[in-house]
């Protein structure tokens, strides 16, 4: 029985090495007080829950990159004590401790960190995981940035609960102002018909209630997949061919760049491909955070450069 035993030993050895290799990052001690001031308020969060939160939270955890971005933009990032592995903007948050990723928050790290405010987002977080955190006694505020209006609402909400209400409101107004400006510049133009590729393989497109279709509208674009009830339905190439969009728009994914459509059977026959009207946008376009405005502007400029002189 020598051989199976040695395999088992090797396997155990590897297992031990593996678990040692993944060390959690240490949670820093923030000087200056524990849970903020004893002064609390009750808020209604984005999914209708009533949450009791401190008026001035000092230990804030973000469970989604879009939330992290808003927290930074309203100026509450010094009180941010934990982010996700996907949070990478702005530069300063990259050094913050990572407490899990979008779908799997690390319960142990979160509980040890003793936050007084945890902000989650329906755009990306797993609902069950987040509610479990609430059950474990953590103060969780869920935002629901499912449309452009909701994003603006989320920005003001986050501003309020982090006690930076003025900055939050100001940020929301600036965003609105930029969007209004774009709308003015595009006034009078007929909307372009576009096929937005959420993911190429398998072919996924944004459906009716998605954020993408909302944002596309702001850039003067009518999405041909906006009539489907599902969120991100699998779309068929035949439908794209039948609906003959003017342009094709997608977001740049580093791990899966869009292949050269002019060489693919069927795709190469699309008018939009033949006319080379394929636009690849920066991924901020899909962020349900204030940065999407940059995305809208980028798209609007690319589609109608003459209106942005």
């Amino acid at each position, binding site marked *: 029985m020598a051989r199976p035993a040695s395999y088992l030993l090797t396997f155990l050895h590897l297992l031990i090495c593996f678990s040692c290799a993944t060390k959690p990052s240490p949670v820093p001690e923030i000087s200056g007080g524990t849970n903020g001031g004893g002064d609390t308020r009750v808020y209604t969060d984005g999914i209708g829950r009533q949450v009791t939160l401190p008026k001035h939270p000092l230990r804030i955890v973000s469970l989604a990159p879009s939330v992290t971005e808003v927290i930074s933009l309203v100026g509450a990032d010094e009180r941010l004590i934990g982010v996700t592995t996907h949070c990478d903007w702005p530069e300063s948050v990259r050094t913050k401790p990572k407490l899990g990723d979008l779908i799997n928050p690390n319960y142990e790290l979160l509980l040890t960190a003793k936050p007084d405010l945890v902000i989650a987002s329906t755009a990306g977080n797993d609902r069950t995981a987040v509610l479990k955190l609430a059950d474990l006694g953590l103060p969780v505020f869920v935002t629901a940035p499912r449309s452009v209006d909701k994003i603006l609402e989320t920005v003001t909400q986050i501003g309020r609960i982090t006690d930076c209400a003025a900055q939050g409101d100001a940020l929301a107004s600036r965003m609105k102002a930029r969007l209004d400006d774009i709308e003015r510049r595009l006034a009078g133009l007929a909307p372009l018909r576009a096929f937005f590729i959420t993911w190429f393989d398998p072919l996924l497109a944004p459906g009716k209630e998605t954020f993408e279709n909302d944002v596309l509208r702001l850039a003067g674009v009518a999405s041909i997949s906006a009539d489907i009830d599902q969120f991100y339905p699998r779309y068929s190439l035949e439908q794209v*061919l039948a609906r003959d969009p003017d342009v094709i728009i997608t977001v740049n994914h580093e791990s899966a760049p869009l292949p*050269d459509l002019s060489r693919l059977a069927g795709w190469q026959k699309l008018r939009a491909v033949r006319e080379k009207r394929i636009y690849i946008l920066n991924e901020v376009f899909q962020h349900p955070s204030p940065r999407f405005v940059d995305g809208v502007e980028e798209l609007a400029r690319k589609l109608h450069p003459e209106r942005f002189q």
Partner: protein
Amino acid sequence: MNRLSRTRIIGTSLSLLALWILAALVSINVGSVRIPLLTSLRLVKSRLLGEALDGSPLAVILFSVRLPRIFLASLVGAALAAAGAAFQSLLRNPLADPYVLGVSTGASMGTIVYSIFAASLGFTAGASFLYARPAAAFLGAALTVAAVYAVGGGSMRAGEGSQRLLLAGIVLASFISSINVFLLTSTNQADLRGIFYWLIGDLSRPVDASILVVTIVVLAGFAVLYLFSHSLNLIAMGETSALILGVEVARVKAGVYLVASLMTGAVVSVGGPIAYIGLICPHLARMLFGSDNRILLPAVFVFGAIFTLLADTLARSLFSPTELPVGVITALCGAPLFIYLLHRRGGKV
């Protein structure tokens, strides 16, 4: 006496081919975009006569998307069904399917590895995208086949049965499966979606020139399998009996194993490991045409094409414009069908 004759085989094959043409006509018509039959016939006629097409969406859909997909579905189904029938005879096991010796798990590993490393290895836009993924899948399949042969191939020596080969296939398949799961845990969520659809079996990818290679492999493979059909009949009676009756068992086993695995690997690399076709179609065909491989193999080849074509047609038109992967349909239909078969045969196969 009902001895098998060339006439009967040709007659059966032609009837099935006619059925296939019928299925193809239905499939042309149906889909997220309906193409009326007369229109499609007219378009095909124009194309055959060399006339320039008007570039209408229907023409593009028909020739660039739908017809290639019909061909792909038929090819994949035919190959899997024939390989399944061959494996069932070879291994003398009614539960054998083309994946039982690890081909699909190996192909999956190839695809998963490709998905993870493609971007970092610089497979960006261009021709490499089209060929790289199927090539990676096929490589994974080929390596697994070689590994299973190395571990269990000692039983290729005649008279020893195929248990060792089968065991080697099962063990290696589950080992590679666990590697796959481990690899999957390290991919990011977006890539997972693509891999998931591939793993379930999906024929919606654009058909490109690589289909020519697959076609040649499948047709040549089928021809070789047909040459072995009588030997497979005898091997199904037991390897000793087959030897006594003049079959070079070791050679036939190695040949069938290799060819059937190649065929399977080729179609799995373009369509993913679609379930149940290689398991169900041989049994259905056997119920209709008997177990003599000389008629069963050609019959199941066309039968598999029809079965898969219809399943894929359903998959892409049930919830149009959204599409289901064909593997979902074959599983949903295949499982109850299999249970019904078992029940009807009284548990015998």
